[in-house]
């Protein structure tokens, strides 16, 4: 009988090599270990859902019976209405901006709109190094990988696959591996917004040194990545300096408050490949 305690070194070497091979396989194929990820996520998302339900239940009991019950319910209702109105306003603003530009250029009216699905955040990341959340909507609700996730304040992130039947993972825009195509609205300078080591600041790259970007300028999604809907708020320029190379050094304060996410909207539009033509536009 193999006593693993007598062969700690061998077991250690085996585990290390196995995991190095696992990482190498994912890096070389870019496909990832989908089965392991899917099975773990599918099973654990049910536990997360139950835990979230339990915690929410406790919070609801506490808030409903021991705090101001009537005021709280009214407050909740008003907050929902406000969030709904903010989303509608953002949609209108985005559509109006696009329509104006298109009408000016081509005399055409933009009729584009997109369906969304409300989702509740049921869990955060199990790894403090990764900024992801789990929502209570999955493949059964039509949620697919790479769909955009937004909130009334602005862009939140994107779905990263694989999705479980009733749960999906969202990579937040503040994750260091996240990125989105964006433009500085006032000067129409295009670039790319990236997550940083900080949880409250984004970096905007690939904006020319010639662009007159100033602190306070609004940054919106450009739509060139094929994921995030064009015109949606990403954030506000916090610092803009002339870079040493071709591009400016810009930091952006996110529009959404990532410290307290409870409800989000999934944009139910399958992602499309970004094209060079679109990027040029």
């Amino acid at each position, binding site marked *: 009988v193999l006593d693993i305690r007598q062969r700690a070194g061998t077991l*250690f070497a085996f585990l290390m090599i196995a*995991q190095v091979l696992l990482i190498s396989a*994912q890096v070389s194929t870019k496909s*990832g*270990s989908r089965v392991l990820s899917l099975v773990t996520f599918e099973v654990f998302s049910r*536990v997360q859902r139950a835990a979230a339900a339990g915690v929410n239940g406790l919070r609801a009991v506490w808030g409903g019976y021991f705090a101001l019950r009537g005021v709280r319910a009214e407050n909740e209702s008003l907050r929902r209405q406000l969030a709904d109105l903010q989303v509608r306003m953002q949609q209108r603003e985005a559509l109006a901006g696009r329509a104006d530009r298109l009408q000016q250029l081509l005399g055409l009216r933009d009729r584009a709109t997109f369906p969304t699905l409300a989702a509740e955040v049921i*869990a955060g990341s199990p790894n*403090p190094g990764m900024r992801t959340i789990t929502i209570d909507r999955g493949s059964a609700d039509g949620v697919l990988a790479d769909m955009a996730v937004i909130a009334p304040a602005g862009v939140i992130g994107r779905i990263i696959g694989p999705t479980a039947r009733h749960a999906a993972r969202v990579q937040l825009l503040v994750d260091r591996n996240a990125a989105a195509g964006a433009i500085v609205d006032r000067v129409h300078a295009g670039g790319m917004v990236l997550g940083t080591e900080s949880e409250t600041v984004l970096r905007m790259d690939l904006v020319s040194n010639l662009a007159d970007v100033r602190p306070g300028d609004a940054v919106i999604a450009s739509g060139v990545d094929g994921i995030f809907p064009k015109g949606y708020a990403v954030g506000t320029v916090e610092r803009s300096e002339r870079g040493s190379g071709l591009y400016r050094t810009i930091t952006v304060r996110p529009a959404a408050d990532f410290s307290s996410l409870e409800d989000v909207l999934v944009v139910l539009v399958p992602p499309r490949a970004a094209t060079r033509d679109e990027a040029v536009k």
Partner: protein
Amino acid sequence: VRTAIVLVALCAALVVQTTLSGMIMGSARGLDLVLIAIVYLALAYGPVTGMLAGTAGGLAQDALAGGIIGIGGLTNTLVGFLVGFLGAQFIVAQTLSRFLMFVAATFAHELLFEGLHALIEVRRFVPNYPSTAVQSGLNAVLGVTIFWVVEKGPTVLQNRRMRRASFGKRRF
């Protein structure tokens, strides 16, 4: 029994970590409960248990967080093994030595995790030292508290019960 303890500890750490970080996103980096569980198990049961707990906990974290599967597994396996090995070689029964082990393990974990990410994603290696310092302190305080509760908790409760019983006899 040990396997059950390891599994229960890791599952509990994962559930609490994901639930807490879902509620308080900004403070999510404050604690790494899975790492605390791994270091605790490594110190309590030795390098093999620490290593296996590291592998299981790290792979579960990777699979759930949605990154490259294996980076967290590799990091936690190494940390679990090293902590267990050091715990077996030196006397780490004191609160201070345990505290230092938790701090060192958190720093080692952060450096390895960031280093591997930087290596694989071909980007700059930029560890966030202030954030890691805060996390290591919190991890150490919670880890040492868990040790105290597990080791001293039953004795304290028993003593309190005995004191109450003797007080009752003296009165009546």
